[in-house]
């Protein structure tokens, strides 16, 4: 579990490891009393790191959501109103409609893994930096 130990975004974390005897770092201790109170959410939200995080996330998820929604809608509309086209045989008895349907499976998996990659490379490090700055020990 994570624990909030200090509020100001630019402040020092009181729970950070102190150099011990002979330079051996001791494990961090729990925050000293009294409880420093909740993090300053307004300050975090107005920080450039946070606005950049929000912008990056939205710039990925909104267009991609619109994309898969339109792609799905296209497919549904074709199935409903373009029956002849969807019934054309590609090879053997495999129809265009079936290929389109399998295409939805492929696009769903592709978007899933693209998002995982994006989140791992772009979102998670930013979140970790903001959390560290807010004084949260992982």
């Amino acid at each position: 579990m994570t624990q909030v130990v200090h509020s100001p975004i630019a402040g020092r974390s009181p729970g950070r490891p102190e150099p011990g005897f002979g330079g051996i770092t001791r494990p961090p201790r729990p925050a000293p009393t009294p409880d420093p109170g909740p993090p300053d959410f307004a300050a975090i939200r107005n920080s450039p790191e946070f606005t950049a995080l929000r912008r990056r996330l939205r710039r990925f998820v909104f267009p991609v959501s619109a994309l898969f929604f339109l792609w799905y809608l296209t497919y549904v509309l074709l199935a409903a109103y373009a029956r002849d086209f969807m019934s054309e045989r590609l090879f053997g008895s495999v129809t265009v409609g079936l290929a389109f349907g399998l295409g939805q499976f492929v696009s769903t998996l592709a978007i899933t893994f693209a998002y995982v990659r994006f989140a791992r490379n772009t979102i998670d490090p930013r979140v970790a930096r903001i959390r560290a700055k807010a004084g949260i020990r992982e």
Partner: protein
Amino acid sequence: MTPPQTVAAESLGSPALNITVFGLFVAITLYVVYRVSHRNTSTSDYYAAGSAFTGSQNGVAITGDYLSAASFLGIAGAIAVHGYDGFLYSIGFLVAWLVALLLVAELVRNTGRFTMGDVLAYRMRQRPVRAAAATSTLVISFFYMLAQMAGAGGLVALLLDVQGKGGQALVISVVGLIMITYVLVGGMKGTTWVQIIKASILVLCVVLMTVFLLGKFGFSISALLDEAAANNAQGQDVLEPGAQYGKTAITRLDFISLSLALILGAAGLPHVLMRFYTVPNALQARRSVVWAVVAMAVFYLSTLVIGYGASALVGSDKILASSGKENSAAPLLAFEIGGTVLLGVVAAVAFATILAVVAGLTITASASFAHDVYASIIRRGRAEPATEVRVARRTAVVIGMLAIVGGILANGQNVAFLVALAFAFAASANLSTLLYSLFWRRFNTRGVLWGMYGGLGSCLLLVSVSPVVSGAPTSIFSGVDFHLFPLSNPGIVSIPVSFLAGYLGTVFSREQADPAKQAEMEVRSLTGIGT
């Protein structure tokens, strides 16, 4: 008309074996539930299993919660009988998870603790918003549950050879009581393990059947499709869209309405949302969805093969003549390729599916009542955790009893539309308000209330004046006709109504969203700070 039923009963193997395999599943799961549930006294343990599951475990559990009997028996049957149109269901059910992955899962995990109401009420006035969230949760859970329990009746007739209504009622009651035991003894932790076990068996079972079927046709999809068309009453039409929905302009529109409800509904289903709280953080919530997407992609691809395989090897005429109609396609196919043993396994899996899904719905509904209604509205946030859990358990018993009674009363009714309807409710009332509260700073209490009640209300109103209720041969009241709305699924109207109502409610309210709470929610939803 007894001949078709006796044919089905005779050809469907040994009820004793079916019961034995199912009994084995129940024994194993009850043992696991008993072993994992040492303490269930805190609210966090009971509602969210202490948030201690990993993403992969929760992903499999989500698969278990989501793949209902409608998914397994219903889709396989729809593909076997109507061909391509049944496949469209699978695609909607799967693509819907992208909404959860991209827009909902991680933010909901970071913002809430136990229920959907936690997220919606975060920066709003607590009592009215929680009341709305609980109403929506209870309505959706009840409709979804009724569909599952009523399906159990038909399954009993088919698989256990219990033809009398009294005997079926008895079996439905037993299934309901086992389910209540899971929830009471295991809480969320035990229920999650039931989902994991069930999902593993279900996916393994359909994959093995699929590989076997493909092997039988020399791994040629085309050969399988040819054979399916040859043994289906609709012939080549089953390879093309429109066999079921293409008849008139109305049925096509109905199909589009259904498709919208499917893709937008999954991320608003309360029992799915609640699963995200069983993992410790947003990263694990993301992993959950990825595991679920992969497991379900495999599952839905397999149902395509199983559905066409049932048409090819069993034939649509024989499926429709059996006592379970479309729903019996997968069991009949299992019997055809694996004899009584495989049928026993498939029968047990089907029962386990109903059992596990209803357990998931029950714990969600009881959590929403205890957490949103009892603790937040009645006790104004001053309830003892132990008392709250006690209320949740009692609610679970009441809901379980309602499910049993509802299942017995609805047995034999045409309730297949209920699952699609639950998705329409979820898409109309929950998704719009969730997205607004997560992404729209100005959204306020009145927006939540208008969006939620507007979506729920328009859904209920449209369904009550639709052919589902009256005016068609398959209606609940087939003798009278007061239908005004031509579509069976209200999604195409009610989803936009809900988004519009949420917008208008916000704009017409002079109430300002609390800026401090708003900042807190925004930071918390994206970073998890404060959880």
